[in-house]
């Protein structure tokens, strides 16, 4: 059976997390990209939880993942709603204008 080491998983999730982080800081135009970057960071955290849950043979990690998925879904819903509302008001969603 082909197994993946815990280190590989952790490095991967860290990389994904940093990609999300850099997307968050570097993006200046598109607010949708920001939301996506936040989603990416949450997913990286989820991946980490899953990896540790398997490694430590502990179920609570996976329960946490379910909770985080729920919360991230609601959060992106609220975020998108806010963006929609904002777009109605201002007619654009360029990030730089949001102060």
């Amino acid at each position, binding site marked *: 059976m082909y197994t993946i080491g815990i280190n590989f998983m952790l490095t991967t999730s860290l990389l994904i997390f940093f990609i999300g*982080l850099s997307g*968050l*800081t*570097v*993006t*200046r135009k598109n607010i949708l990209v*920001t939301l996506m970057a936040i989603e990416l960071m949450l997913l990286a955290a989820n991946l980490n939880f899953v990896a540790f849950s398997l490694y430590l043979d502990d179920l609570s990690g996976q329960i946490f993942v379910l909770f985080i998925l729920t919360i991230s879904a609601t959060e992106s819903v609220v975020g998108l709603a806010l963006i929609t509302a904002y777009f109605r008001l201002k007619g654009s969603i360029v*990030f*730089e204008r*949001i*102060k």
Partner: protein
Amino acid sequence: MYTLIILLPLISACFAGLFGKTLGFKGSSIFSTICLSIVLLISCIVFYEVSVNNCCVYIKLTSWVDSGALNINWGFLFDSLTITMCFIISFISFLVHLYSTEYMSHDPHLPRFMSYLSLFTFFMLILVTADNFVQMFVGWEGVGLCSFLLINFWYTRIQANKAAIKAMIINRIGDFGLVIGILLIFVNYKTLDYATVFALTPLLKEKTTNFLNLNLNLLTVIGIFLFIGVIGKSAQLGLHTWLPDAMEGPTPVSALIHAATMVTAGVFLLGRCSPIYEFTEDLLKYVVFLGSITCFFAATVGLLQNDLKKVIAYSTCSQLGYMVFVCGLSHYEVGVFHLANHAFFKALLFLGAGSVIHAILDEQDMRKMGGLKNLLPFTYSTMVIGSLALIGFPFLTGFYSKDLILEVAFSKYDCSGYLSYSFGTISAFLTTFYSTRLLFLAFLSNTNGYKPVIENACDSSYQISTVLGILAVPSIFIGFFFKDMLVGWGSCFWGNAIYNSPETANVVDSEFIPGFYKLLPIVFSLFVLICSFYLYTYSSKFLFKLKISSLGKKIYNFLNKKWFFDKIYNEYIGQFFFHFSFSVSYKIVDRGIIEILGPTGLSHFIKKISLGLHKIQTRYMYHYLFVMLAGVSFFLSIRQFWSVLGETFDYRIAFIFFLQFFFLFLSHGKKN
């Protein structure tokens, strides 16, 4: 009865000062004069009891400071030195009170004046009757305060204000020395009682003390600092400038403070501390030197002053020089004897001068007087008696003490003895000359005054004449009567009050000095007296020519301007301190360092920082995000690297960084 001597002047001061309005002018002056007359009466009785019957009295009223090793009592010690001073003070003070009732009768603040005079007497009595150094210091400061109040009595005059401040400050310099001396005594003896200190002194003869990192003999250091106090209070050279300026006060004040009592406190202190000074031979030489220089200096300056009171003030200074140098020659009893004699005739001179000034509408310039002999015959005769006593005319009071001083100076047979003898003798000639000049210019010469003034001049009435008459008697006789008792060979008058070490006693030697040197001062003084009388009467043109010759002008200027002491003090020391206090302590320290580090700088700094922090908030979302990221990573890395950093990081460095930031921000702010 003994404490009544001290309490009565205080009561008088309180009543005249607090209830002056109720008591009225007459009431307050009569009340205080009666109080002082009772004091005089008591002190006569006490004088008989303490010094004639030889029984010292010690009264402990109550404990004052009681903390650990420091025990200070309100105690009163009446021995022969104290009671001699007490008698002089109460006698002069009573007469001055009596004199002031008429002299100041038209002054709107007469009760206040009486109150100050009584308060002064109270403090002076505290000074002389104290049994420890701290209580003595109470009196010492108190008389300084009262002299401030009295010099400044006519407080609307700027000159009086300045003179009073000067007197206070210059006295304070001396007091500073005295305080250090007292502290040194306490540190080394662990007590401040006279009795204990003087009993312990021989034990500490060899002890050294560390002062300013120098190991010096303890007694010498104490002696030096006590002597600085003496210099200030007794107006010795260096700190003498306040005394002539203090003539701005009313004339009775000058008589009381600057002739008879306050300035004698220094000589009293020398006599009182004789057990300490007897073990400091080197210091005594310096005391002799300073005393004789003062004596000479003041006599030369007195020669060419034109203010009636200033001449007498300088003669006081000169006579104090005699007293101090004879104390330096270890003849404290002779010093106190001269002090006693001087008190009477100098008070007479001052009060006589007051009478003259009163008669001619407060004119003090001698050049505008003259010809008062026939107008003020009584004042003239008393002034002649006073002046002759001051000169040391044979068989008057001054003769007995001054001649004795010069004799014991000559019989010292060392450098300091000869120095003081020669200075003392020259000063005796000069004294003769300026006394004659004073009498001549004021009384004998043709009049220079204005006609309306001269027409109205007449002798003062009852109180002033009575006082002058009473003072003339001791000025003639007291030296003769008390010489054998006070300084006579084998007299046990002083008992333990004054200590003379066997090595320095040369009473016998003074009887065997060559007749020439014994007679020199007196014969030459008489010669100068006749000469100056002749010069002023018959050849005043010669004197005038002498004065306007080129060398004469320079000498006249030099002496008339008091050796330029005031000029030097004002221009170099005074200006320096004014400059220092403005540009260094005010501008650099107060407004500079303290303000930059303190209120202004700190608030600016905080403001700057908060503005900077405010600017970080750009309202761009991605900037916030970046700061968040940076912050998180910073804290994470600190957490990780703490084990390494914690070893080397020092909190104190943070302070330096803080200061650096501080100045960085400030300098940055200035450019903006």
